């Protein structure tokens, strides 16, 4: 027993000490994020107004959709060139960014190269009652086709099968429709979709319009790289929670000028860093769909 006691006492003194690390701390220089700058001192929406909507506008649309009992928030930024004649508006749209919130833990991402492949079809014109504050604005119908070509874009059914001739490989990746990525995985979803949106708002500032939207989306999954990405749950518009804001960004009417390089043309690269300043993104919440 004495030997056992000696052994235990000896070993008790073998306690380790924590050695220091030789790994150096990591210090990184400022990444210089947000190096796109605007010209002039104006802020979004400020200024006296140009007396017409003709010019370049930036629009951010936050659309709420219910997927089963979960909410999906689609946050999209558009560059708009508007020509106003009397009170009618011819609007040309270019989509600069689309972000979809996760649903059931899966987040679909629309790769940047896909955005120019979304086809906007001119259906009609918008109109504006007045460009002064409190003036009302109704947009033209925004009709976009994603991975499909329809003879009658407004009325034809959106195809459901990948071998339907109306389904086109818009992005040329060898898969039907447009290919979306699933964030955090190698999974891909192939989409055929038609979206129809109209915006209704009013001038809250001389260079800013705020309002709501009505959206009808017909989206069909026509394939996927893995089964889990191919799930095709029913989508329901949640228009009461869908909003938009558009601001003039070409410097006219003392507005902000986002032509950062001064080449006379405002591009998506120039406006993209500023989209979150138009409407801050909000988190989706299942409570909005119960």
């Amino acid at each position, binding site marked *: 027993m004495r030997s056992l006691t000696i052994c235990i006492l000896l070993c008790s003194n*073998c306690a380790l000490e924590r050695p220091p*690390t030789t790994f150096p701390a990591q210090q990184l220089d400022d990444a210089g994020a947000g190096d796109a700058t605007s010209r002039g001192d104006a802020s979004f929406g400020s200024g006296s107004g140009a007396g017409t909507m003709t010019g370049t506008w930036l629009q951010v649309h936050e659309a709420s959709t219910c997927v089963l009992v979960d909410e999906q928030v689609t946050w999209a930024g558009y560059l708009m060139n508007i020509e106003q004649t009397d009170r009618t508006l011819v609007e040309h749209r270019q989509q600069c960014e689309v972000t979809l919130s996760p649903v*059931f*833990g899966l987040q679909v991402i629309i790769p940047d190269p896909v955005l120019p492949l979304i086809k906007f079809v001119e259906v009609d014109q918008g109109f504006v009652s007045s460009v002064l504050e409190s003036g009302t604005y109704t947009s033209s119908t925004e009709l976009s086709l994603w991975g499909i070509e329809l003879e009658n874009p407004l009325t034809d059914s959106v195809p459901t099968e990948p071998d339907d001739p109306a389904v086109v490989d818009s992005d040329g990746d060898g898969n039907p429709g447009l290919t979306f990525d699933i964030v955090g995985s190698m999974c891909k979803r192939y989409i055929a979709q038609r979206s129809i949106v109209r915006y209704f708002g009013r001038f809250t500032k001389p260079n800013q319009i705020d309002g709501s939207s009505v959206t009808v989306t017909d989206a069909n999954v026509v394939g996927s790289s893995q089964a889990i990405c191919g799930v095709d749950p029913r989508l329901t518009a949640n228009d009461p929670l869908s909003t938009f804001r558009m601001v003039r960004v070409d410097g006219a009417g003392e507005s902000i000028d986002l032509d950062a390089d001064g080449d006379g043309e405002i591009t998506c690269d120039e406006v993209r860093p500023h989209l979150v300043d138009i409407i801050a993104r909000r988190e989706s919440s299942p409570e909005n769909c119960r």
Partner: protein
Amino acid sequence: MRHLLPTILLTLGAAPAYASPYDVYGAGARGAAMGSAQTATATGAEALYFNASQLAAAKTGLSLGVMATFGRPQILLKERPDGYEVPDIGPPSRALGDDLIVRDREDTETQKPLAGLTIGVVAPLVFKGLQAGVLVFLPLPEPVTLSTRFADERERAFSNRLEFERLGAAPHRLDLEFGLAYEVTTWLAAGVGAAYLPGFAVNTGVYLADTTDQADADLNAVIDTENNFGLLAGLTVKLPADVVVGLSFRDSIALRVTTSNDLQLNGITDGEVIEQQANWTPLYTPARGAIGVAWSPDKWSFSGDLRYTFWSTYEDSQGDRPGFTNVFSGSLGTEYRTSEVTALRAGAGFEPSPVPTQDGRTNYVDNHRANFSFGAGHTLQAGETVLDIGWYVRIQGLIRRETSKAQLDNYPVCGEGVQTLCDEIPDDLVDPQTGRPFPEARGLQTGNPGFPGWVSGGWTGSLGVELRY
């Protein structure tokens, strides 16, 4: 369901073990006291563990033993330097942000104590010189942790600590061995037997009626079991001048659990199921060959063993082969009979670690081990009844080992096949909101619990008593 699989395995006595309890603490009071140098001199049912052929000359009867462990093995983690934190940047990143982890990274300074009951039986069979034996180790009823682990940064989402690969909960499991031996001639005996472990295949069906409420699930399971046997074989050769040579082989044996989940999500899976699969190896004991020599002049007995263990085939609990090294280990033992009824015993041994330097992605913790032991045996006789009592104390030192992760100019993104310390958030990961790379993703972000290194060591021991009738 979350409790079903552990319950099944606990019922069968299995634990996340990478070694037999006999590998760590010795088998039988005499064997444990003599440093496990028993390949040529085992005398009871423990011969099944050391050399099955020695069952042929083993004393017949029943043995009962109890044992318990103590000690303080330690793993102390080095302080993390600043600047390597994993930020929470949401779904674009697969990495778990530092603010979202369930358990803090911490040292390992406790060892679950083990107590167990050993039962051995040696019995003659129909032919002269033919004997059979059974050896069972039963952990006494106590909570047993069943767990698998990741050896790299993925473990941060679970225990977020390191464990000894061949200690800790390792010996907390049932050990069942049986066999028979035949004395071919007066100088040659041969034996063969098997070690047994169960295996499981579990299929779980899961139905989520509300995919936003994943705590509410309907579950069913189908469980299949399988039997796994590992070959035990041995030879004993008696030479002149009281010299005995023993040769033994123990094949590898594993407890594997194959699990699959079939998920049905209401409104989503639409007539199909989502399959999840895992192939675990909670227990793997590699093959081992041994040669032993014993010399027994007069009242003394001296023995020595040399073992070669095939650790290169080792599978960790996730079923991966980490590329350990085959190693030689050895031990020496002695016994001195002070009288007709009393013998004093002592032994020592050394086992190098099969685990290579862990300066990359993985964190297998292991140490060289040196052990020494002592004990005694006493024979009591009442009429025609003879009772042997043996006891032992065995101390095992874990020789201090310091590990530091290697610094690189560039760290690869973590993924399959990456073996160096790796970056959990790619530098070029783009923020879908801004279209620009995340500034906080630059450089190395790692939550690897073994980063930037650790030191391991300490000691462990066991003591036991055995009665042989």
